[in-house]
Protein backbone atom coordinates (compact mmCIF):
# COMPACT_ATOMS: atom_id res chain seq x y z
CA UNK A 1 0.00 0.00 0.00
CA UNK A 2 1.34 3.33 -0.89
CA UNK A 3 0.09 6.24 1.05
CA UNK A 4 1.87 8.95 -0.77
CA UNK A 5 -0.92 11.41 -1.12
CA UNK A 6 0.94 14.06 -2.92
CA UNK A 7 0.88 17.64 -1.88
CA UNK A 8 0.54 19.74 -4.91
CA UNK A 9 2.37 22.85 -3.94
CA UNK A 10 0.67 25.73 -5.54
CA UNK A 11 1.77 29.27 -5.00
CA UNK A 12 -1.08 31.04 -3.34
CA UNK A 13 -1.63 34.37 -4.92
CA UNK A 14 -3.66 35.89 -2.12
CA UNK A 15 -1.65 37.52 0.63
CA UNK A 16 -2.45 35.34 3.61
CA UNK A 17 -0.05 34.36 6.30
CA UNK A 18 2.01 31.24 5.73
CA UNK A 19 0.08 29.08 8.14
CA UNK A 20 -3.20 30.02 6.56
CA UNK A 21 -1.72 29.41 3.15
CA UNK A 22 -0.66 25.97 4.27
CA UNK A 23 -4.17 25.03 5.31
CA UNK A 24 -5.62 26.44 2.12
CA UNK A 25 -3.32 24.25 0.10
CA UNK A 26 -5.29 21.65 -1.77
CA UNK A 27 -4.61 18.02 -1.19
CA UNK A 28 -5.02 15.64 -4.08
CA UNK A 29 -5.79 11.96 -3.89
CA UNK A 30 -3.42 9.62 -5.72
CA UNK A 31 -4.83 8.86 -9.15
CA UNK A 32 -5.88 5.31 -9.84
CA UNK A 33 -4.49 3.55 -12.90
CA UNK A 34 -7.99 3.36 -14.34
CA UNK A 35 -8.40 7.12 -14.10
CA UNK A 36 -5.05 7.69 -15.83
CA UNK A 37 -6.05 5.38 -18.67
CA UNK A 38 -9.47 7.01 -18.96
CA UNK A 39 -7.91 10.45 -19.25
CA UNK A 40 -5.54 9.20 -21.94
CA UNK A 41 -8.37 7.62 -23.92
CA UNK A 42 -10.37 10.86 -23.75
CA UNK A 43 -7.28 12.78 -24.91
CA UNK A 44 -6.83 10.39 -27.83
CA UNK A 45 -10.49 10.85 -28.82
CA UNK A 46 -9.99 14.62 -28.72
CA UNK A 47 -6.96 14.18 -30.95
CA UNK A 48 -9.02 12.16 -33.42
CA UNK A 49 -11.81 14.74 -33.61
CA UNK A 50 -12.48 15.62 -37.25
CA UNK A 51 -11.91 19.34 -37.73
CA UNK A 52 -11.72 21.85 -40.52
CA UNK A 53 -8.31 22.17 -42.11
CA UNK A 54 -7.95 25.76 -40.90
CA UNK A 55 -8.23 24.82 -37.22
CA UNK A 56 -6.28 21.58 -37.43
CA UNK A 57 -2.89 23.24 -37.34
CA UNK A 58 -3.69 25.06 -34.08
CA UNK A 59 -4.96 21.98 -32.31
CA UNK A 60 -2.69 21.00 -29.43
CA UNK A 61 -1.67 17.39 -28.98
CA UNK A 62 -3.97 16.46 -26.09
CA UNK A 63 -2.37 13.04 -25.68
CA UNK A 64 1.08 14.55 -25.25
CA UNK A 65 -0.17 17.11 -22.73
CA UNK A 66 -1.98 14.44 -20.71
CA UNK A 67 1.09 12.18 -20.78
CA UNK A 68 3.27 15.04 -19.55
CA UNK A 69 0.75 15.89 -16.83
CA UNK A 70 0.88 12.35 -15.44
CA UNK A 71 4.68 12.27 -15.71
CA UNK A 72 4.89 15.39 -13.60
CA UNK A 73 2.24 14.49 -11.04
CA UNK A 74 2.24 10.67 -10.86
CA UNK A 75 5.69 9.85 -12.17
CA UNK A 76 5.82 6.39 -10.60
CA UNK A 77 2.68 5.27 -12.43
CA UNK A 78 3.60 6.70 -15.81
CA UNK A 79 5.82 4.52 -17.89
CA UNK A 80 7.31 4.86 -21.30
CA UNK A 81 5.46 1.75 -22.42
CA UNK A 82 2.13 3.57 -22.06
CA UNK A 83 3.52 6.49 -24.07
CA UNK A 84 4.75 4.09 -26.73
CA UNK A 85 1.36 2.37 -27.04
CA UNK A 86 -0.48 5.70 -27.16
CA UNK A 87 1.92 6.78 -29.91
CA UNK A 88 1.20 3.67 -31.95
CA UNK A 89 -2.55 4.24 -31.59
CA UNK A 90 -2.11 7.86 -32.60
CA UNK A 91 -0.11 6.77 -35.67
CA UNK A 92 -2.75 4.29 -36.78
CA UNK A 93 -5.53 6.84 -36.33
CA UNK A 94 -3.58 9.73 -37.79
CA UNK A 95 -2.47 7.81 -40.92
CA UNK A 96 1.12 8.83 -40.20
CA UNK A 97 4.31 6.77 -40.39
CA UNK A 98 3.98 3.88 -37.95
CA UNK A 99 6.21 4.65 -34.98
CA UNK A 100 6.45 8.40 -35.59
CA UNK A 101 4.29 9.50 -32.69
CA UNK A 102 5.50 6.58 -30.57
CA UNK A 103 9.07 7.88 -30.78
CA UNK A 104 8.00 11.47 -30.17
CA UNK A 105 5.84 10.60 -27.13
CA UNK A 106 8.60 8.45 -25.62
CA UNK A 107 11.07 11.31 -25.84
CA UNK A 108 8.48 13.75 -24.46
CA UNK A 109 7.82 11.41 -21.52
CA UNK A 110 11.56 11.01 -20.93
CA UNK A 111 12.00 14.78 -20.77
CA UNK A 112 8.95 15.13 -18.54
CA UNK A 113 10.23 12.44 -16.15
CA UNK A 114 13.59 14.18 -15.90
CA UNK A 115 12.11 17.67 -15.51
CA UNK A 116 9.14 16.44 -13.46
CA UNK A 117 10.59 16.89 -9.99
CA UNK A 118 11.74 20.35 -10.93
CA UNK A 119 8.42 21.27 -12.54
CA UNK A 120 6.42 20.33 -9.45
CA UNK A 121 7.73 23.26 -7.41
CA UNK A 122 6.36 25.79 -9.88
CA UNK A 123 2.79 26.98 -10.20
CA UNK A 124 0.79 25.87 -13.22
CA UNK A 125 1.35 29.17 -14.98
CA UNK A 126 5.10 28.91 -14.45
CA UNK A 127 5.09 25.29 -15.63
CA UNK A 128 3.47 26.18 -18.95
CA UNK A 129 6.54 27.53 -20.82
CA UNK A 130 8.67 24.58 -19.67
CA UNK A 131 6.00 22.16 -20.86
CA UNK A 132 6.03 24.16 -24.09
CA UNK A 133 9.70 23.32 -24.48
CA UNK A 134 8.89 19.60 -24.20
CA UNK A 135 6.06 19.96 -26.71
CA UNK A 136 8.37 21.79 -29.10
CA UNK A 137 10.99 19.05 -28.95
CA UNK A 138 8.25 16.49 -29.53
CA UNK A 139 6.91 18.27 -32.61
CA UNK A 140 10.44 18.73 -33.92
CA UNK A 141 10.94 14.96 -33.71
CA UNK A 142 7.68 14.35 -35.58
CA UNK A 143 8.83 16.75 -38.31
CA UNK A 144 12.27 15.12 -38.50
CA UNK A 145 10.74 11.67 -38.95
CA UNK A 146 8.41 13.05 -41.63
CA UNK A 147 11.35 14.64 -43.45
CA UNK A 148 13.20 11.33 -43.23
CA UNK A 149 10.13 9.80 -44.86
CA UNK A 150 10.46 12.20 -47.80
CA UNK A 151 8.09 15.04 -46.89
CA UNK A 152 8.78 18.74 -47.19
CA UNK A 153 9.36 20.96 -44.18
CA UNK A 154 5.82 22.08 -43.28
CA UNK A 155 6.80 25.63 -42.29
CA UNK A 156 7.12 27.23 -38.87
CA UNK A 157 3.37 27.60 -38.67
CA UNK A 158 3.26 23.92 -37.77
CA UNK A 159 4.67 24.76 -34.36
CA UNK A 160 1.66 26.90 -33.47
CA UNK A 161 0.29 23.71 -31.88
CA UNK A 162 3.06 24.13 -29.28
CA UNK A 163 1.79 27.62 -28.49
CA UNK A 164 -1.79 26.42 -28.11
CA UNK A 165 -0.45 23.62 -25.92
CA UNK A 166 1.25 26.18 -23.65
CA UNK A 167 -1.98 28.15 -23.39
CA UNK A 168 -4.03 25.05 -22.62
CA UNK A 169 -1.61 23.49 -20.13
CA UNK A 170 -3.12 25.14 -17.06
CA UNK A 171 -6.79 24.54 -18.01
CA UNK A 172 -6.12 20.89 -18.86
CA UNK A 173 -4.14 20.32 -15.66
CA UNK A 174 -6.96 21.84 -13.57
CA UNK A 175 -9.54 19.78 -15.45
CA UNK A 176 -7.68 16.52 -14.89
CA UNK A 177 -7.17 17.22 -11.18
CA UNK A 178 -10.80 18.11 -10.40
CA UNK A 179 -11.92 14.50 -9.69
CA UNK A 180 -8.83 13.96 -7.54
CA UNK A 181 -9.57 16.83 -5.20
CA UNK A 182 -10.18 15.68 -1.65
CA UNK A 183 -13.61 16.56 -0.35
CA UNK A 184 -13.40 18.93 2.64
CA UNK A 185 -14.26 16.92 5.70
CA UNK A 186 -15.91 19.00 8.43
CA UNK A 187 -15.23 16.34 11.10
CA UNK A 188 -11.54 16.15 10.35
CA UNK A 189 -10.33 17.88 13.51
Amino acid sequence: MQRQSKLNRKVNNDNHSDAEGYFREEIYLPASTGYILLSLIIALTLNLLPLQQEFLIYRPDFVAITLIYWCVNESHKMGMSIAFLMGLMMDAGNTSIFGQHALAYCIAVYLALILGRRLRIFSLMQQAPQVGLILFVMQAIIVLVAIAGGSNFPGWQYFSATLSGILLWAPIAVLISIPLKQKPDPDAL
Partner: protein
Amino acid sequence: MTADPQFFRHGPGPFARLFVFALLACILIAEDLRFKQFPELRQAVGIVVFPLQKIAYIPTNIYDQIEKLIASFYLVEENQWLKQQYQEDREKLLKLQSLEAENVQLRKLLGAMQGIETDTHTQAVMAEILYTPRDPFNHKITLNKGSQHDIKLGQAVIDDQGIVGQITRIYPWSSEVTLLIDKNHSVPVQVVRNGLRSVISGTGKQDALLLRYLSVNTDIIPGDLLVTSGIGGIYPPGIPVATVDKIERDPVDDFAHIIGTPIAGVDRNRQVLILSLTPPPADELAETVKIESQSK
Protein backbone atom coordinates in the same frame (compact mmCIF):
# COMPACT_ATOMS: atom_id res chain seq x y z
CA MET B 1 3.82 -6.41 2.97
CA THR B 2 3.20 -8.02 -0.34
CA ALA B 3 5.22 -5.67 -2.49
CA ASP B 4 8.23 -3.52 -1.92
CA PRO B 5 7.50 0.13 -1.49
CA GLN B 6 7.77 1.96 -4.79
CA PHE B 7 10.40 4.15 -3.25
CA PHE B 8 13.01 1.40 -3.17
CA ARG B 9 12.24 -0.28 -6.44
CA HIS B 10 14.80 0.38 -9.10
CA GLY B 11 14.06 -0.63 -12.64
CA PRO B 12 16.28 0.41 -15.49
CA GLY B 13 16.88 4.16 -15.51
CA PRO B 14 14.82 6.50 -17.65
CA PHE B 15 17.53 6.86 -20.25
CA ALA B 16 17.94 3.12 -20.66
CA ARG B 17 14.19 2.76 -21.07
CA LEU B 18 14.10 5.60 -23.56
CA PHE B 19 16.90 3.94 -25.51
CA VAL B 20 14.98 0.66 -25.76
CA PHE B 21 11.72 2.30 -26.82
CA ALA B 22 13.39 4.72 -29.22
CA LEU B 23 15.15 1.79 -30.86
CA LEU B 24 11.86 -0.07 -31.14
CA ALA B 25 10.17 3.00 -32.63
CA CYS B 26 13.01 3.48 -35.12
CA ILE B 27 12.69 -0.16 -36.21
CA LEU B 28 8.96 0.36 -36.73
CA ILE B 29 9.55 3.58 -38.68
CA ALA B 30 12.12 1.90 -40.92
CA GLU B 31 9.76 -1.03 -41.40
CA ASP B 32 6.92 1.27 -42.40
CA LEU B 33 9.00 3.46 -44.70
CA ARG B 34 11.10 0.82 -46.45
CA PHE B 35 10.03 -2.78 -46.04
CA LYS B 36 6.27 -2.81 -45.34
CA GLN B 37 6.38 -6.48 -44.29
CA PHE B 38 3.86 -6.43 -41.46
CA PRO B 39 0.73 -4.48 -42.36
CA GLU B 40 -1.16 -6.69 -39.87
CA LEU B 41 0.48 -4.93 -36.94
CA ARG B 42 -0.85 -1.59 -38.03
CA GLN B 43 -4.23 -3.08 -38.81
CA ALA B 44 -4.49 -4.54 -35.32
CA VAL B 45 -3.79 -1.13 -33.77
CA GLY B 46 -6.18 0.43 -36.28
CA ILE B 47 -9.00 -1.84 -35.11
CA VAL B 48 -8.37 -0.75 -31.52
CA VAL B 49 -8.48 2.92 -32.50
CA PHE B 50 -11.57 2.61 -34.68
CA PRO B 51 -14.19 2.85 -31.85
CA LEU B 52 -12.48 6.03 -30.65
CA GLN B 53 -12.67 7.45 -34.15
CA LYS B 54 -16.36 6.61 -34.21
CA ILE B 55 -16.86 8.36 -30.87
CA ALA B 56 -14.91 11.38 -32.11
CA TYR B 57 -17.23 11.50 -35.09
CA ILE B 58 -20.38 11.82 -32.95
CA PRO B 59 -20.29 15.66 -32.71
CA THR B 60 -20.08 15.85 -36.49
CA ASN B 61 -23.03 13.46 -36.72
CA ILE B 62 -25.09 15.67 -34.42
CA TYR B 63 -24.16 18.71 -36.49
CA ASP B 64 -25.28 16.83 -39.60
CA GLN B 65 -28.61 15.98 -38.02
CA ILE B 66 -29.24 19.62 -37.12
CA GLU B 67 -28.25 20.68 -40.62
CA LYS B 68 -30.65 18.11 -42.06
CA LEU B 69 -33.42 19.41 -39.83
CA ILE B 70 -32.85 22.95 -41.06
CA ALA B 71 -32.60 21.75 -44.65
CA SER B 72 -35.94 19.96 -44.34
CA PHE B 73 -37.66 23.36 -44.24
CA TYR B 74 -36.47 23.97 -47.78
CA LEU B 75 -37.37 20.58 -49.23
CA VAL B 76 -39.75 21.92 -51.87
CA GLU B 77 -37.23 24.34 -53.28
CA GLU B 78 -34.52 21.72 -53.20
CA ASN B 79 -36.74 19.21 -54.94
CA GLN B 80 -37.50 21.69 -57.69
CA TRP B 81 -33.83 22.50 -58.14
CA LEU B 82 -32.92 18.82 -58.25
CA LYS B 83 -35.59 18.11 -60.83
CA GLN B 84 -34.25 20.87 -63.02
CA GLN B 85 -30.72 19.56 -62.51
CA TYR B 86 -31.90 16.09 -63.42
CA GLN B 87 -33.44 17.30 -66.66
CA GLU B 88 -30.25 19.08 -67.61
CA ASP B 89 -28.10 16.07 -66.76
CA ARG B 90 -30.49 13.77 -68.60
CA GLU B 91 -30.11 15.82 -71.73
CA LYS B 92 -26.33 15.64 -71.46
CA LEU B 93 -26.53 11.89 -70.89
CA LEU B 94 -28.67 11.38 -73.99
CA LYS B 95 -26.18 13.38 -76.01
CA LEU B 96 -23.37 11.30 -74.53
CA GLN B 97 -25.05 8.06 -75.51
CA SER B 98 -25.55 9.18 -79.08
CA LEU B 99 -21.96 10.45 -79.18
CA GLU B 100 -20.68 7.13 -77.87
CA ALA B 101 -22.60 5.25 -80.52
CA GLU B 102 -21.32 7.62 -83.17
CA ASN B 103 -17.79 7.23 -81.88
CA VAL B 104 -17.97 3.45 -82.10
CA GLN B 105 -19.36 3.74 -85.63
CA LEU B 106 -16.59 6.10 -86.73
CA ARG B 107 -13.92 3.89 -85.20
CA LYS B 108 -15.30 0.93 -87.09
CA LEU B 109 -15.25 2.94 -90.31
CA LEU B 110 -11.66 3.89 -89.70
CA GLY B 111 -10.78 0.34 -88.76
CA ALA B 112 -8.94 1.71 -85.78
CA MET B 113 -8.53 -0.04 -82.55
CA GLN B 114 -9.07 1.91 -79.43
CA GLY B 115 -5.67 2.66 -77.97
CA ILE B 116 -6.47 1.64 -74.48
CA GLU B 117 -9.12 -0.91 -73.73
CA THR B 118 -10.79 0.36 -70.62
CA ASP B 119 -14.17 -0.38 -69.31
CA THR B 120 -16.02 2.67 -68.12
CA HIS B 121 -18.53 0.66 -66.13
CA THR B 122 -17.95 1.66 -62.57
CA GLN B 123 -19.63 1.07 -59.29
CA ALA B 124 -19.63 3.84 -56.79
CA VAL B 125 -19.82 3.59 -53.02
CA MET B 126 -20.52 6.66 -50.97
CA ALA B 127 -18.20 7.20 -48.02
CA GLU B 128 -17.76 9.84 -45.38
CA ILE B 129 -14.47 11.33 -44.31
CA LEU B 130 -13.86 10.10 -40.79
CA TYR B 131 -10.66 11.94 -40.09
CA THR B 132 -8.21 14.31 -41.68
CA PRO B 133 -4.72 14.20 -40.17
CA ARG B 134 -3.36 17.04 -38.13
CA ASP B 135 0.05 17.22 -39.74
CA PRO B 136 0.43 19.42 -42.80
CA PHE B 137 2.90 16.93 -44.32
CA ASN B 138 0.49 14.04 -44.12
CA HIS B 139 -1.74 14.08 -47.20
CA LYS B 140 -4.07 11.26 -46.33
CA ILE B 141 -7.65 10.98 -45.14
CA THR B 142 -9.57 8.22 -43.41
CA LEU B 143 -12.93 7.08 -44.78
CA ASN B 144 -15.64 5.22 -42.92
CA LYS B 145 -15.79 2.28 -45.35
CA GLY B 146 -13.39 -0.64 -45.25
CA SER B 147 -12.84 -4.21 -46.32
CA GLN B 148 -16.15 -5.16 -44.72
CA HIS B 149 -17.85 -2.94 -47.33
CA ASP B 150 -15.95 -4.57 -50.23
CA ILE B 151 -13.49 -1.74 -50.57
CA LYS B 152 -10.25 -2.86 -52.19
CA LEU B 153 -6.75 -1.46 -52.36
CA GLY B 154 -6.10 0.87 -55.25
CA GLN B 155 -9.66 2.01 -55.84
CA ALA B 156 -10.10 5.57 -57.04
CA VAL B 157 -11.81 8.13 -54.83
CA ILE B 158 -13.64 11.06 -56.43
CA ASP B 159 -15.95 13.86 -55.41
CA ASP B 160 -18.56 15.63 -57.52
CA GLN B 161 -15.88 17.50 -59.46
CA GLY B 162 -12.93 15.21 -59.96
CA ILE B 163 -10.32 12.82 -58.60
CA VAL B 164 -9.53 13.11 -54.90
CA GLY B 165 -7.08 10.24 -54.51
CA GLN B 166 -6.64 6.53 -54.21
CA ILE B 167 -7.18 3.96 -51.45
CA THR B 168 -3.81 2.87 -50.11
CA ARG B 169 -4.54 1.15 -46.84
CA ILE B 170 -7.47 -0.88 -45.63
CA TYR B 171 -8.86 -1.65 -42.21
CA PRO B 172 -11.97 -3.74 -41.60
CA TRP B 173 -14.27 -0.74 -41.13
CA SER B 174 -12.24 2.13 -42.44
CA SER B 175 -9.72 2.88 -45.14
CA GLU B 176 -6.98 5.36 -45.88
CA VAL B 177 -6.92 7.50 -49.00
CA THR B 178 -3.71 9.03 -50.31
CA LEU B 179 -4.63 12.40 -51.75
CA LEU B 180 -3.62 13.66 -55.18
CA ILE B 181 -1.31 16.22 -53.61
CA ASP B 182 0.79 13.58 -51.81
CA LYS B 183 4.38 13.53 -52.98
CA ASN B 184 4.31 9.82 -53.74
CA HIS B 185 1.11 9.88 -55.74
CA SER B 186 0.80 10.06 -59.53
CA VAL B 187 -2.12 9.90 -61.92
CA PRO B 188 -1.93 9.18 -65.66
CA VAL B 189 -3.62 12.12 -67.39
CA GLN B 190 -4.50 13.44 -70.79
CA VAL B 191 -4.98 17.01 -72.01
CA VAL B 192 -8.58 17.37 -73.18
CA ARG B 193 -7.73 19.92 -75.87
CA ASN B 194 -5.25 17.79 -77.85
CA GLY B 195 -5.16 14.35 -76.24
CA LEU B 196 -1.56 14.70 -75.05
CA ARG B 197 -0.76 12.03 -72.46
CA SER B 198 1.37 12.48 -69.38
CA VAL B 199 1.59 11.71 -65.69
CA ILE B 200 0.78 14.24 -63.01
CA SER B 201 2.25 13.96 -59.52
CA GLY B 202 1.67 15.59 -56.20
CA THR B 203 4.19 18.02 -54.78
CA GLY B 204 3.34 17.72 -51.10
CA LYS B 205 1.95 21.24 -51.18
CA GLN B 206 -1.69 22.14 -51.03
CA ASP B 207 -3.15 23.10 -54.42
CA ALA B 208 -0.13 22.28 -56.53
CA LEU B 209 0.44 19.33 -58.85
CA LEU B 210 3.46 18.84 -61.08
CA LEU B 211 3.25 17.67 -64.69
CA ARG B 212 6.56 15.93 -65.24
CA TYR B 213 8.63 15.02 -68.27
CA LEU B 214 6.98 17.18 -70.90
CA SER B 215 9.51 18.82 -73.18
CA VAL B 216 9.91 22.59 -73.40
CA ASN B 217 8.10 22.87 -76.74
CA THR B 218 5.05 20.82 -75.70
CA ASP B 219 1.70 22.17 -76.87
CA ILE B 220 0.16 23.06 -73.53
CA ILE B 221 -1.28 26.36 -72.35
CA PRO B 222 -2.52 27.67 -69.00
CA GLY B 223 -6.14 26.76 -68.46
CA ASP B 224 -5.90 23.37 -70.17
CA LEU B 225 -8.08 20.74 -68.53
CA LEU B 226 -6.36 17.49 -67.58
CA VAL B 227 -8.49 14.36 -67.27
CA THR B 228 -7.55 10.80 -66.38
CA SER B 229 -6.38 8.86 -69.41
CA GLY B 230 -7.31 5.44 -68.07
CA ILE B 231 -3.81 4.04 -68.62
CA GLY B 232 -2.84 1.79 -65.77
CA GLY B 233 -6.39 0.65 -65.19
CA ILE B 234 -6.76 2.22 -61.78
CA TYR B 235 -8.61 5.37 -62.67
CA PRO B 236 -11.53 5.27 -65.09
CA PRO B 237 -10.83 7.51 -68.11
CA GLY B 238 -12.24 10.98 -68.53
CA ILE B 239 -12.50 12.19 -64.94
CA PRO B 240 -11.16 15.72 -64.39
CA VAL B 241 -7.94 15.90 -62.38
CA ALA B 242 -6.46 19.36 -62.68
CA THR B 243 -6.23 22.55 -64.67
CA VAL B 244 -2.88 23.82 -65.88
CA ASP B 245 -1.95 26.84 -63.87
CA LYS B 246 1.55 27.96 -64.65
CA ILE B 247 4.10 26.96 -67.26
CA GLU B 248 7.75 27.85 -67.06
CA ARG B 249 9.70 27.10 -70.20
CA ASP B 250 13.34 27.49 -69.39
CA PRO B 251 15.52 26.35 -72.32
CA VAL B 252 18.26 25.40 -69.87
CA ASP B 253 16.12 22.53 -68.55
CA ASP B 254 15.13 19.62 -70.71
CA PHE B 255 11.58 19.64 -69.44
CA ALA B 256 9.01 22.38 -68.99
CA HIS B 257 7.99 23.15 -65.43
CA ILE B 258 4.21 22.79 -65.46
CA ILE B 259 2.13 23.37 -62.33
CA GLY B 260 -1.54 22.41 -62.11
CA THR B 261 -4.28 22.96 -59.55
CA PRO B 262 -6.45 20.03 -58.51
CA ILE B 263 -10.09 20.41 -59.49
CA ALA B 264 -11.64 18.28 -56.76
CA GLY B 265 -11.96 19.80 -53.32
CA VAL B 266 -9.10 17.73 -52.00
CA ASP B 267 -9.42 19.19 -48.51
CA ARG B 268 -12.93 20.56 -48.42
CA ASN B 269 -15.26 17.61 -48.77
CA ARG B 270 -17.28 15.69 -46.25
CA GLN B 271 -18.47 12.96 -48.56
CA VAL B 272 -16.68 11.23 -51.40
CA LEU B 273 -17.36 8.40 -53.83
CA ILE B 274 -15.21 5.28 -53.99
CA LEU B 275 -15.16 3.93 -57.54
CA SER B 276 -14.55 0.32 -58.36
CA LEU B 277 -13.72 -0.54 -61.92
CA THR B 278 -15.40 -3.74 -62.94
CA PRO B 279 -12.92 -5.65 -65.07
CA PRO B 280 -14.06 -6.23 -68.66
CA PRO B 281 -15.62 -9.66 -69.22
CA ALA B 282 -13.26 -12.38 -70.41
CA ASP B 283 -14.89 -12.97 -73.80
CA GLU B 284 -14.59 -9.30 -74.66
CA LEU B 285 -10.88 -9.45 -73.89
CA ALA B 286 -10.51 -12.53 -76.07
CA GLU B 287 -12.22 -10.69 -78.91
CA THR B 288 -9.85 -7.75 -78.77
CA VAL B 289 -6.89 -10.09 -78.84
CA LYS B 290 -8.34 -11.81 -81.89
CA ILE B 291 -8.80 -8.55 -83.75
CA GLU B 292 -5.28 -7.53 -82.88
CA SER B 293 -3.84 -10.73 -84.27
CA GLN B 294 -5.87 -10.29 -87.45
CA SER B 295 -4.62 -6.79 -88.01
CA LYS B 296 -0.99 -7.88 -87.73
